[in-house]
């Protein structure tokens, strides 16, 4: 049944209160909760952080909006805390990283499938195969540094396989910009998709920039440096899909609508009852925020918000997208970028090739960390035994990259 943001006014802002005890509550279980519950927590943390980021930028540029934005932003800050702090402390930063990449893969695949615009869908699929490779590199790091199996985070929903090699993700900035949707023509869903993926990637970028220096292992530090750089490119790519001619109030309206859409998607799909109650509470708060933005839209734009925001036909499909991802992997892994277009590898922009040659001149962290890595249930020690891949060179050839069944 479609969901309409106009059917409920939600919780009025003056009743959106939290205590510190409300914000810091029982976290999810790393072991017992479904991986998609963890992904929802990370998704909504990213959405809330985008709300804060946008609100600050809007306040800098709009005197008249400063007060209502500040009022809403205080609640968004507390929601961001409530949601983000649901993650339990027994996740190491690297395990959390695995979860971030799992979300990037499953969410981007779901969005690419549902996206009505072919060009936008192509852009999502292009980024998808890069996050897919990041997961493989980080899984190798987790196995080889902490001795842990990334699949205990992934719960077999997401493949651990090479995608487009990370060392080839580094591009000239001119090859990261894409063509924005047209605000007057694009479907509402296209606008919400772009906001959602931009939010998720921006959060991932910020997370890697923060946790990268906490690692002692220099190879881990290098890998985070490398992938953080790609995530910055991803933010650049997805952000460039947003129509720059949207007014500040229109953008605010869309941000609030997107928060409603994503919380609604979480409410509809959540399996943990305590976490579901958080999504329901936040959805009611966001409906309150949406109607404040809608009022500002009517007042300053003298337009009907319903011109911009319609019903949500169905929630975001938050489930394993393995089959879809593999099809994209098999058919599009060799695609590259040329300006705003996604092209065959042979047509890649020479400027991007030059950029990566310079960056990788001292070696490639993503190649070093995963060389010879084949995911095996229980870590690669199960397949390689005590000898390890390096010592095995003496007795058998190193993995040459073919399909190796564990």
């Amino acid at each position, binding site marked *: 049944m479609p969901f309409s943001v106009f059917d409920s006014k939600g919780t009025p802002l003056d009743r959106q209160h939290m205590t510190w005890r409300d914000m810091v509550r029982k976290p999810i279980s790393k072991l017992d909760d479904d991986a998609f519950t963890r992904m929802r927590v990370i998704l909504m943390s990213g959405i809330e952080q985008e709300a804060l980021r946008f609100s600050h930028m809007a306040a800098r540029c709009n005197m008249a909006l400063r007060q209502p934005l500040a009022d809403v932003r205080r609640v968004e800050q507390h929601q961001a805390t409530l949601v983000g702090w649901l993650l339990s402390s027994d996740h190491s930063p690297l395990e959390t990283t695995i979860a971030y990449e799992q979300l990037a893969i499953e969410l981007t695949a779901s969005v690419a499938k549902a996206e009505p615009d072919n060009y936008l869908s192509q852009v999502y699929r292009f980024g998808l195969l890069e996050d897919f490779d990041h997961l493989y590199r980080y899984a190798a790091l987790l196995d080889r540094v902490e001795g842990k199996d990334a*699949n205990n985070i992934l719960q077999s929903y997401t493949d651990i396989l090479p995608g487009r090699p990370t060392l080839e993700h580094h591009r000239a900035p001119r090859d990261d910009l894409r063509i924005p949707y047209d605000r007057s023509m694009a479907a509402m869903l296209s606008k919400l998709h772009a906001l959602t993926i931009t939010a998720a990637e921006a959060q991932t970028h910020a997370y890697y920039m923060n946790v990268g220096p906490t690692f002692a292992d220099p190879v881990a530090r290098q890998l985070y440096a490398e992938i953080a750089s790609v995530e910055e490119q991803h933010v650049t790519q997805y952000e460039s899909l947003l129509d720059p001619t949207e007014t500040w109030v229109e953008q605010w309206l869309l941000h609030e609508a997107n928060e409603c859409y994503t919380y609604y998607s979480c409410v509809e799909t959540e399996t943990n009852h305590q976490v579901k109650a958080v999504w329901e509470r936040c959805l009611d708060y966001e409906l309150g925020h949406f109607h404040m933005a809608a009022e500002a839209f009517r007042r300053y734009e003298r337009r009907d918000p319903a011109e911009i925001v319609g019903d949500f036909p169905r929630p975001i499909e938050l489930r394993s997208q393995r089959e879809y991802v593999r099809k994209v992997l098999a058919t599009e892994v060799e695609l590259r970028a040329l300006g705003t277009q996604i092209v065959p590898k042979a047509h890649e922009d020479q400027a991007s090739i030059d950029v990566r040659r310079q960056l990788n001149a001292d070696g490639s962290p993503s190649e070093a960390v995963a060389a*010879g890595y084949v995911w095996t249930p229980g870590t690669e020690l199960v397949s390689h035994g005590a000898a390890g891949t390096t010592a095995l060179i003496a007795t058998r050839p190193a993995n040459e990259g073919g399909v190796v069944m564990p």
Partner: protein
Amino acid sequence: MAHQSEHMGMNRTGVQMSPIDTAAMQGSENVPMRGAPGDERALLDAREAYILDADAIGSLPIPGSVAGAVSLGLHMLKGDRPQILLDKLGERLSFERTGTRLYDALLAKCDVIEGGPAGMTRDHVADIRRDEARHFLLLKEAIESLGGDPTAQTPSADVTGVESQGIVQVLYDPRTSLAQSLHALLTAELADRAGWETLIALAGEAGQDDLVAGFTLALEDEHRHLALVQGWYHEAIGLTPVSGMLPPGGSAGLPPDASTAPTSTPDVTTPLPGTDGMLGTDI
């Protein structure tokens, strides 16, 4: 209320929980490549290059007082290695200070979790906490007696802080049971015993007989802590006590009544100004 014992439930990790998804994960349809070519040599090479180029964690502070500098200089002239002793004194001071806080965390759990090990009373835990705080002050005085600065963080103190991070996380996690908390403390106590043994050897080598005497008493406390914590841990996981399971006494020997005896080591420290000398009794 935290779970007092590990229970069977909906743990979703492990491939046996997702046989269909795991089979699909290992299937080969549309998989151009299962792993990148190569081996771990490139990873090791990258690490080795950094190790060769690395600076140390940091240095020991130069004494801030003239008396301290003179004392340190005299020791060095005699061919001693006071910097090693000062570094390790700093390490133990740091560890004992953190250890005190670990027992604070355990006390918080003792107060709200019912059904813990019968032999583990709040007074016993508070006694150990008091010992750890007292050891910290003992080390403070020892560093001062050598002309060092007990408020400085030495390189080994910093590294032992990194080592202890996981233990601190386990103790302060409201979800961890008494058994899990005691396992973390057992790790700390094992390291603590070895640390005091090293310190006694270093102080002996430096001819610091007064320090050796005080440290030996502290080591006896640590043997008792280790025996108590291991006994409580075994009880918490339902293990039947077996004679001879307690840790060996180490160089100083285990007191005969180590598994049950409350602390009896005389207080070798001077009370802090403004205190009544009963450190730890207000917890």
